[in-house]
Structure formats: C-alpha cells, structure tokens
C-alpha cells in the first residue's frame, strides 16, 4: 500500500506552510478601527518605530498630559522624525466612558493632538493582550516589531499638569537612545494612571 516516507515532502510542506502563515513577533499584531473608520494594523508599520499610547479622555492622568500640551508635543516631535504614534483607547464598549471612533476623533481634534491614528479597542482585547493597565501606559516598538520600552510616560506620578514639563520623560529617553542606535537604558517601568476600563 502506501509508504509514508514518500509523503515526507508534502508533510514538510504542510509544516512549513503552517509556520510561514504566522511568523512570530514580540509586539502582538492587532487590527483596530481608527477615528475615521479605517482599519489600522500594527504590522502596517513594520520597519518603523511605533509608539503605542493607551489613552482614555475621561482619565485625569490622560488630561494632565493633554491639558499641559505634553502629549501633543511628543506626538509632533516624534512624528516629525518618522515615528508612528498610535493612541489606543481600550475602554470596553460596556463602560460608560466608552468613546465611539467619531467621539475619539473629535476629542483628539479639540486637543490639537497629532497621533498617526487614534484607535478604538472596544472589546479591550488588544489592551488585554498587551497587558495595558493604566492610562496612560506607553509601549515603544522598534522596526523589527520588538517592544523596547513599556511602562509609565514619565517619573512624576501625579495629575498636576505642571509636573509634565519638569518630569523625566521615559518615552522621549527611549526613542532618543533607540534612534541614535543605542540600547534603551530604562526599558521597563511601572506605569501609573487610571485603570484601563476593561
């Protein structure tokens, strides 16, 4: 009858297909809807530095960084250097703090914010996958798709907008080092802020 050894090429092809179908990365890919209704994937930006900013307009810690102009400043500063900035709102659609894509877009416009996209994660699945705990909670992804910084935005744990200026900003530090080809000194800090509304 059949001699399986002769199927080995097909068996190997099957295994190779399964592996090729899913190459592994450290920063999990996601596909989320932006404020204009367009689907944005992390993998769209492979080859570039990407900043993921977990956000929630209802959170006083987020407002601290937007009311002081700190977050918009970072978005513009690094956007100009070809870093892709994605704001992610993982507030669950069952929470009354949930913002529709339109509402999120309006808020970003009102704040004169400049992320590449503001993304809505209404099932919270992306937030859970990344282990995002707080708003803000920041992740920096390198062009290979590895997370090179995760944690707090800076070292001043407060809701006072005045603190944003004098703080040591971990995201700026990580991007500055990475873009200069240096290893990131502080790659992980405990985030601070409101809990993500899962």
């Amino acid at each position, binding site marked *: 009858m059949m001699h399986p050894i002769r199927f080995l090429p097909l068996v190997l092809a099957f295994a190779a297909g399964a592996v090729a179908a899913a190459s592994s990365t450290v920063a999990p890919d996601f596909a989320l809807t932006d404020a204009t209704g367009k689907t944005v994937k992390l993998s769209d930006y492979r080859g570039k530095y990407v900043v993921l900013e977990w956000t929630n307009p209802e959170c006083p810690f987020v407002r601290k960084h937007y009311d002081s102009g700190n977050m918009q400043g970072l978005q513009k500063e690094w956007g100009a250097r070809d870093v892709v900035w994605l704001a992610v709102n993982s507030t669950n659609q069952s929470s*009354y703090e949930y913002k529709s894509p339109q509402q999120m877009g309006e808020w970003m416009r009102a704040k004169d914010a400049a992320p590449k996209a503001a993304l809505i994660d209404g099932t919270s699945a992306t937030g859970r996958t990344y282990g995002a705990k707080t708003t803000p909670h920041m992740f920096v992804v390198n062009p290979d798709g590895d997370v090179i910084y995760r944690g707090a935005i800076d070292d001043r744990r407060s809701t006072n907008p005045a603190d944003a200026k004098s703080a040591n900003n971990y995201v700026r530090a990580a991007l500055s080092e990475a873009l200069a080809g240096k290893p990131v000194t502080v790659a*992980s800090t405990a985030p601070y*802020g409101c*809990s993500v509304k899962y």
Partner: protein
Amino acid sequence: MDSLKTIARVTPAFALAVVLASGMASTALASPVKTEHVEAELVSERTALIPGKPVTLALRLKMAEGWHTYWRNPGDSGLPTTIAWKLPEGVGVGAIQWPAPRTLPTGPLVNYGYEGEVLLLTGLTVPRDAAPGSTYKFSARADWLVCKDVCIPEGADLDIVLPVSDHSDPYPQWGSAIAAVRAALPTPLQAWRVNARGDGARIALALTPPEGAPDPGPLYFFSYDEGRVEPSAKQVLTRDASGAYQLTLPAAIQLAPDFKRVAGVVTAGKGFVEDGERVAAVTVDVPLVGTVVAGAKSALAPSPTDAAAAQAASGSDLSLAAAVLLALIGGLILNLMPCVFPVLSLKALHLAQGHTVARVQRLQGIAFALGVVASFVALAGLLLALRAAGEQLGWGFQLQSPPVVIGLAVLFFVLALNLSGVFEFTSLVPSSAGDWTAKNPYVDSVLSGVLAVVIASPCTAPFMGAAMGFAFAQPAVVTLGIFVALGLGMSLPYALLAWFPGWRRWLPRPGAWMERLKQALAFPLYATVAWLVWVLGAQLDNDAVVRMLIALVVLALALWAWRVFKIGHGRAWAAVASVALVSALVVVWPLLRGDKDEPSAVTSAATGPWRAFTPTTVADLGSGGHPVFIDFTAAWCVTCQVNKRLVLNNTEVRDAFARRGVELVRADWTRRDPVITQALAALGRQGVPVYVLYRPGKSPLVLPEILNKQTVFDALATLDSVPSQTVTLK
C-alpha cells in the same frame, strides 16, 4: 453711645466668651473639608501638645460609598495619597504610617487601598522649649486620587491648632480611634522566620511559624514597591512538610530593576498570634536570594470570571478528567472521518494479510501510536508557541492559510488517485527509498502516524473546533494532555489490532474484494478535495477555484503519464509527465504567493440581513437599544455550516429575530483575522462556532455550539423582560 456703654458693662462676660471660644477653637478641629467624594480633616490623638513629646496626627478620609483611595503602592493603577506639611519652627515630622490595605479588584486589575474611612497616621514631635499656654498650628496640603469606575484627583488644605500644655487627654472623638489604628499598624514578625527566594518568574516567600503557633489562615503579600509582585496575579499558599507556609508570589510583568529585598505587608485571614496577641497584618523585609525574571505577559488575558461566565452560559464546564475522556473518544471517532477512514482502514486490512512477524507488528503498532501522539502534541505545541509569541490564532489556524488548504487538497487528490488505481506509489520514487523503508519498519510506522495526523487535520477543525477551543482555553499542560489523549484515541484501533493478532479474526478475510473496496474508498477522499476547494473559494475567489481545479487535472495527467512511462513505454511519456507537473505548479503558484493579500472577494460575512463584524459593531448597533446577535463562523467549520443551514436560515428563527428587532452580525473567520480572534478571546473562546446574544442592559448570552431552534427561541425569550421599543410597539 449706649451701645458702647452696654459693651463696657458686659466686657468681663464678653472677654470670657472670647477666651472660651478661642480655647474651643484651639482644641476643636476645624470642620471637615468636603470634596465631591471625600470628607477630609486633620485629627489629633491627644487634646494638647506636651513639650518634647511626640504626638500622632491623622489625615482622616471618609470616602463616599463605593469609592476608594490608595495605599503607598497603589497596585495596578492609581496614586498614593500624599501629605505635604507646613509646620511651625522646630516641629519634627515622620512619614505616613499606613494601615494595612486591602485588595480592590477593578475588572481584571487589582488595586491596593481603602474603602469607607481611613486614618493615615503621622508622628510629629514638639520642641522641648514649647511654652505651655501657647498654641501650634499644623497645616497640610493633602492630595488623593479617589476612584470608583472613574478616578478623580482631589485635595484639600487642612489645618489643626493644638495648645501646648503639661498635660493631655485622649481626644474625645478621635483619640481612641487613632490609638486603635496605631495598635493595628503592621509591625515586624517577631517569632516567625521569614525568607525569600527567587524562582524564575516567581518569588517564594517562606514563613516558618514557631512551635505551636495557630494557623494564620489565608495570607496575602502587599509589596511596598511597585514593579516587584504582579498585583492581579494569584498568590498561592501551600504548607510544606516542615510546617513552613510558602506564599508563591508571581513576579511583576514590568519588573523594576535592583530587586534585592522583599519588603511589604503580609495580611493573615485569621491573624498571626505573637506574644499572645493576635495581629491581622505584619511587615516583612528580607533579602531576596537568587534572581527573579519578569512575569509572563498574559496576566490580563480574558479573566477567569469572563471565561467561567461564558462556559456557564453554554453549559460546557468540563472537568479535566471529562475533557481527557472526551478527547480519547474524539480521537476514536476521528478514525471514521471521511478524510481518515479510507487510509487507516486499508492500513488495518493490510495487517490482516499478516506478512510480518507478530513481534515486529506489535512494535510497529506502538511506533504508529507514537507518531500520531507526537504529531498532535507538535501541532498543539506549535499553536501554543505562536500564540505565546503574540499571534492571534485559534484552533482551525491550519485551515486559515490558503497555501495549507492547497497543500492538503493536493495530498488528498494524490491519495485518491492512488486508491483509484491511476498510479502506484512504487512507481514514483527511486527504489532505494523503498528499500530504506523496508529496512526501517519502525521509522516507517512512525511516519505513518505523522501522515495520519496530517490527513486528519482538516477534519479536526470542522468537527472538533469547539472542543479544541476548550482545550486551548486551559493551561498549557492541560492543553497538551488533551492532545495526547486525542492522539491515543486515534491510534488505538490500529495499535490494538497490531498488538492482538487474535482480534484480526474479526476482520474480513483478504481477497479480491479488497481491490474494489480500495477503489470505492477513493470517493470520500475526492469529496474531501471538493470541500477543500470550496474552502479555498471562500478564502480567495472564483478564479482561485478554477486555478486549483486546472492544477489538479494537470497533476492527474502527470501521474498517469508517469505510470505509462514506468510500465515500459517511451521516454516521451516521461516528458509529458514532467511538463504537466511543471504546468500544474505554474497554474497554482499565484495562489501560494497570494497569502498575504487581502481577500479579493467579499466573503460570505455580509449577506441578506447579516452585517459584517467590526470591533465597534456591537456598540454601534447596541446604542440604538437593539439586541445584537453575532454568528462567529468559518467556511471550513462544518458545525457552523450545519447550524447555519438548519437553524439560522430557518424561516421561524429569522422571523423570531425580526420580531424582536435583533441586529444580526456575522463574523467570518475563514481567513486569519486578528480582530475576530480578539473578539473570540474576549468571550473566552479560541475557535468557532460561537453564538452570542448581546442584550440591552444585561450581560451577553453565549449559546451552545450545537444550535437548535428551541435554544435560539429560549435565548430570545430572555429579551422580553427588558422593555424594548420593538416589544412595546407590538
């Protein structure tokens, strides 16, 4: 003038009143400051200050019902309360003495803090030269974050004035409360031995009780510092043979550097008894032996409560033993699947011909079982590894990639042609390979097992997707255990026949009929090919189906021509076979490359009353007060197709949906789709089918995988208790 005289007359009384009033003010506390969610004030343990002696003041925060403020380490989110003192010359001040916190779960996250009322103590010292009769004013700016579902930063400027005296009494209202809080402040364990050891992504905190110490009950460790212990991960308490309590602490995902000491508060459900006194909380501060690595990143993966709710709703709360037993039975049933049965039944019949020594056959049976189990474990391990690496995949992933579907279609087509007698495998390969397999019968059997799993793989997804989904929702060890059971079940019939030669009496005697059976069994395999081509069509487009069919026809031509060449006809036939093979490859090549493209055709998601799924569908549709029903499905999922034909497309069911104004959404998972995988994960599922009814004002209802009309009607009936617009209109 009269009024002046009056004042002059009453001056002694007036002066007394002023003194009394000011005296009261100097000992009375300023009335509490009320913010939106908190009542705050500074309170004192004693009525007066004694020169050179310490005094305890407290920031009293009384939170509104359901609101909380934070401990020094706020846990997963939040901010500790802060006090900035403005003090008279010469007054010394210590840090906040925090009462033991409690855990405050919010969704999958865990915070550390206080609900109700809390007294945050601070010790101050009054200068030795403070003059009795004078007063001291202590001012403080207190800031706190108060949270319920939302967080509000609040703060207040507070002060308290206390007289200096050589004598003081407990302050009437707060004196005893402050004393009680101070007595209950966590203090170091005296008689117990404590040590901490790093163990990978865990910290083992060992607490050895003294002789005869009563059981302290459940223990919980609150780390002073963030970035040490993951607040939302479960701490496990065990007791070892020596009687020591072992509290296993999962390391923080975002581990902070310089982890040298394990310092924090340990609370005990029944309390620690020391010197005859029972204390509910103690402090530990011990060096960390060994090293700790950051915890795994899956702490927020769908919370156990979500998964449990989903399971309870669908009634599939399997115990491990039941899951393993079901997997074993599932494996047995796999032998009967249209893709597996033809191949394995012929393999079994060949045993009956009994050309080989019994001992060799037995070992071959075991080798076959090994091959099957190892392949299932490898496949499950591959999926687990890819998921750990962050891929959004579920069971059925092997059929979500067009190249894999094409490979399987070719494999089944070639097997079927072989059974039909179009060609012999012996004619395909050099004879040396045949000799090699003859010399290594066990390797041959292991590879037979691998092949059996490969041909079974398209059948596990359609018929067993839900069970596999359960398997992948379990810890990795359980998942692999279930797959081992599945492999054992699948290989059991063949292995038993190989082991017990006597059993083969029950098999029909070999004869000429076997050739006809072999040819007949080709047809289930052709049917499998037809189905795989249909799946490919759903993943790509009609053009892909045509390319695939042409490639198969040309492949058949190649095999046929090769056989003609091998039985002694001219070399021209070999050339025909080669050209045909190359043509088949050329025709199918664009499909193999096209894996990364978006589907060029609109899949079956949005048809009829069904809308396609997007992450915001539920919110958008639900905001209109409508219930929403989501059908998570895939073309390769046979259970899904059966449910669709028999139940969802049934007129009565469609009418029932329409009557209640249910918005219908279809999430098509035929191709890889991280959005849908995430939505499934949020429901605690890893595979299709899943049916969910989102009900306004109620929790979502997950329906069983095998639908019937009554189940759907029952689910819809639960909507009626909610007055929806549609119902009141009727």
